[in-house]
């Protein structure tokens, strides 16, 4: 078990380094000299020329611009590791400051979506398999296929349309009631968020919930056909015990191990949904950064999101190893 954790940990570190490298290449990819763009932009914003000079100089030094690419990568990666996400040219503020709360909210909402996905899809998929070809199964199989086909930004748009036409809303539903938007975090604000957040979870999680229902149903059907289920039945166990104690444990495995693939999709979904519904998540910031060609900010966001995913993936693997003795004893 310990060697397994160690191995997975090493693997995670390697993936992280590669992710940073790839992101770095993406930053470097755009044509044009970053410093020239920066200088132009700052000039446009009527910033004091002295400040411009010193800012540009600071960037040259910090990112080693003009030096070898691997030195530049090293410097960038090092500053990232120290928690320095770079500097937003548009906002004239350190990126980490801008990201702060948005980032943590994004990650929490994604985790909540993941939980929502599990809570909804596992029972539905399981019941569909147990009652195969029943009306319940047919309707959920169809609904799930429908759900898989609707991208989250369209769900968000439809939601927007409904709230505009049916409820006559003039502003977009956010995460908070208006009075809490700028308020400090408090219990009341948290409760307020809970009231609003479920619809977001639904919008972001719909597609993945639907596809998890499909996976769960298929896995459960496979598992119920396994001989060890017959063994369990022959002990005289009740249906519930067979399904929950014996079948579910095995059937749910691939769903847990697929967290690593689901999570990126949920983050993708939450990014675009946040843009459509103007939620205080990381998505709108990323879009803004991209449209404003604020490369270092955009890239930091990409890297941070991906690293969060890689860590999440690692944790999911640990959970799996803890659940499944076959993996636990592998090494």
């Amino acid at each position: 078990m310990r060697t397994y954790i160690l191995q997975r940990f090493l693997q995670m570190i390697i993936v992280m380094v590669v992710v940073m490298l790839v992101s770095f290449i993406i930053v470097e990819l755009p044509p044009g000299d970053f410093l020239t763009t920066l200088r132009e932009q700052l000039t446009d914003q009527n910033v004091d020329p002295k400040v411009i000079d010193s800012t540009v100089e600071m960037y040259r030094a910090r990112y080693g611009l003009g030096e070898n690419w691997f030195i530049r990568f090293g410097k960038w990666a090092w500053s990232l590791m120290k928690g320095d996400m770079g500097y937003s040219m548009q906002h004239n503020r350190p990126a980490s400051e801008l990201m702060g709360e948005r980032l943590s909210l994004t990650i929490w909402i994604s985790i909540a979506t993941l939980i929502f996905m599990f809570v909804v899809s596992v029972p539905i998929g399981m019941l569909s398999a147990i009652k195969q070809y029943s009306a319940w199964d047919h309707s959920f199989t169809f609904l799930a296929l429908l759900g898989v086909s609707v991208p989250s930004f369209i769900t968000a748009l439809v939601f927007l349309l409904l709230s505009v036409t049916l409820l006559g809303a003039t502003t977009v539903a956010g995460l908070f009631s208006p009075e809490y938007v700028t308020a400090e975090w408090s219990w009341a604000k948290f409760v307020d968020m809970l009231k609003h957040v479920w619809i977001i979870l639904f919008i972001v999680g719909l597609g993945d919930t639907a596809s998890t229902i499909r996976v769960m149903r298929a896995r459960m059907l496979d598992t119920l056909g396994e001989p060890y289920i017959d063994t369990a039945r022959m002990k005289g166990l009740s249906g519930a015990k067979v399904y929950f104690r014996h079948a579910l444990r095995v059937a749910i495995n691939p769903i847990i191990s697929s967290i690593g693939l689901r999570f990126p999709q949920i983050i993708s979904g939450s990014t675009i949904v946040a843009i459509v519904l103007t939620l205080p998540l990381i998505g709108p910031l990323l879009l803004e950064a991209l449209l404003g060609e604020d490369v270092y900010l955009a890239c930091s966001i990409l890297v941070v999101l991906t690293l969060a995913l890689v860590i999440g993936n690692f944790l999911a693997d640990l959970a799996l190893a803890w659940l499944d003795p076959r993996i636990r004893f592998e090494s």
Partner: protein
Amino acid sequence: MNTAPDSDKVLDIRDLQVSFRSIAGTTRAVNGVSLDVRSGEIVGLVGESGCGKSVTIRSIVGLVPSPPALFEEGEIWLRTRRGMAETLSLHKNMKALRQIRGRDVSMIFQEPMRSVHPMMTIGKQITEGILEHEIVDPAEAYDRTVEMLDLVGLPNPAAQMNRYAHELSGGMRQRALIALALVCHPQLLLADEPTTALDVTIQAQILELIRDLRERMSMSVLLITHNMGVVATLADRISVMYLGKIMETGTVEEIFKEPAHPYTQGLLASMPSLFSQPKTHLQSLRGVVPELAMVPKGCVFADRCPHVMPKCDETPPVVELRADHSAACWLYADGGETPGAEAASTAEPLVSTEDTSGDFQKAVEVIPVPGTEPGSDSAQEPPADNDTAQLQIENVALHYPILRGLLRRQVGTVRAVDGVDLTIHRGETLGLVGESGCGKTSVGRLVARLVEPTAGRIRFGADGDLEEITHISQKEMKRVRRAMGMVFQDPLSSLNARMNIRNIVGEPLMLHQVAKGRAVDDRVGELLEMVGLRAAHQSRFPHAFSGGQRQRIAIARALATEPSFLVADEPVSALDVSVQAQILNLLLTLQQQLNLSMLFIAHDIAVVRHVSDRIAVMYLGKIVELGEAREICVRPVHPYTEALLASIPLPMPGLETLREMPKGDLPDPANPPRGCRFHTRCPYKQTICEQEEPPLRHIAGDPDHFGACHFQDELHLEGVEEIDDIHAPAAVAEGK
């Protein structure tokens, strides 16, 4: 409702009919089966695959999914702790059924590897059963489980409690499953092919265990199997099933000594046994088991029956031949052409046909037996005359690295083949036998260089001269392979489902530019006819053929380039007994016609003995005994060979084997025991065996018989006696 049966019966199935509904229509899988099991009795239910054995036995406990199953008729009476209960009517009442399952009746399944829950400890799985049925505190349930694990012969039972399925071997899992089934002391154990997935030595252990537990726990057993040998060793009474119907029922002695039904007679005659004349044709049933949708009207066996008569268009009655012996056949009923009294004599000639095998026997004698200089004590094959040796491998090894972890580090080596020497002579069949995982298949693939040897030399000669092929390029190898053919184990996977038969069989022709265009069609047609199929079948796809027919196609492909050497890797182990006999006959015929040399690989020593001139016995990557086929079976010199012979369930009831059974499991091939590799299981082990590895050397007084045991010249091991000594109706000697 009918009345409950007398209390002597533990199980009474009456006229059970089960159908399956699908889009293609409704097919009847079980068609009026009646069967009973009395107290303390072991009843065997035998039949070929797909004949409805599993559906019958699963209906007893409601394990057949419905839908698609329809229980159309019948009653199943089961003795429970509350008296007789009719379980078919309980299918609706799951609660009552659950109380019976595990407590009054239990079941063990065919695939022990998949029947243990992979994520729950063994202990938890067994105690769960106790706690379900009885009000006991967990500590007591724990103790009882340990006791039960001990009873089924698992070593160190307390430690097994915390282990998971993947930590146990197949044999151990089946033992654990038996413990699980018996922990609540049911009166009836249903065993659905409990040993089919296991090696012969393990099978022998499990059968022994079931027999032993029946006495100790005074229970009854209903045993399903397709292996006549297994029922003969274990059962008291037997029912023979074919296409959803019971053909014949009787005590084990009657069924084996005086089989009445043509199907039973055919089944017994199809089996190559350790007593039959080697290299002769087996009496096979013609044709194949039809699909359920194509079952003939009247007697379902009619289209394969050698005694078929007009009357057989009607369903035959079940005739009581004697107390406890009945058969469903017109031969014995009034209205049939042959009165019952003459039936037995009519049936008799079936197993001794006219002597068509005569010329084969002559051919066998013609095969040159390798000569050797007396007194040579080298462990090598005797230096054979180059004119006769077709294949020679020397000290060949195949090691697979075990890679683990991120960096794919090598953490060990599986020594699949570890220094093997063999010579195969022109026109000779060398049989290679051993348990699963011992490296048989690897030897077969090494010979054709389908895998690259780790060490050693392989020499092959298509026409006379031996040529070294160990390291030649793939291009040259292609030329060499033209003279080799190979037949694989799995008839399903060995034919590409996307290609039609013409392209499958013609592929080697095209690749070797033997033929082009229409010429391929003609040659493929010829080949198909040679293996007993029709030339017109070329345009069909593999899914249109049965397992036996597919194996014929595979043989046609192997022979397409007119090779002089054939590797047959378990060519019959995936087939039903009756079809197995057909394929063995075909291989023997072709070998004679084409003067093929053959490396014949199988795990069943009876099959190997039947087709081979010489046999090599393999254990954990090494040859442990090598010699003339009959000699090896009659006078084995290696304890492992003796164990293999002793493990084979013989279709000969009452023949108690007193020989030593091999203990334990096959060791991990990645970590073979030091010294003699068999010492962990050998009953004759001495201290020297743990330290020194015995070389393969010829035994005293016989330069053609080799063994790799330190004590091969001192031990007096038991083989299988010659035919004359034992009355063996299943193997009435041909030509005698």
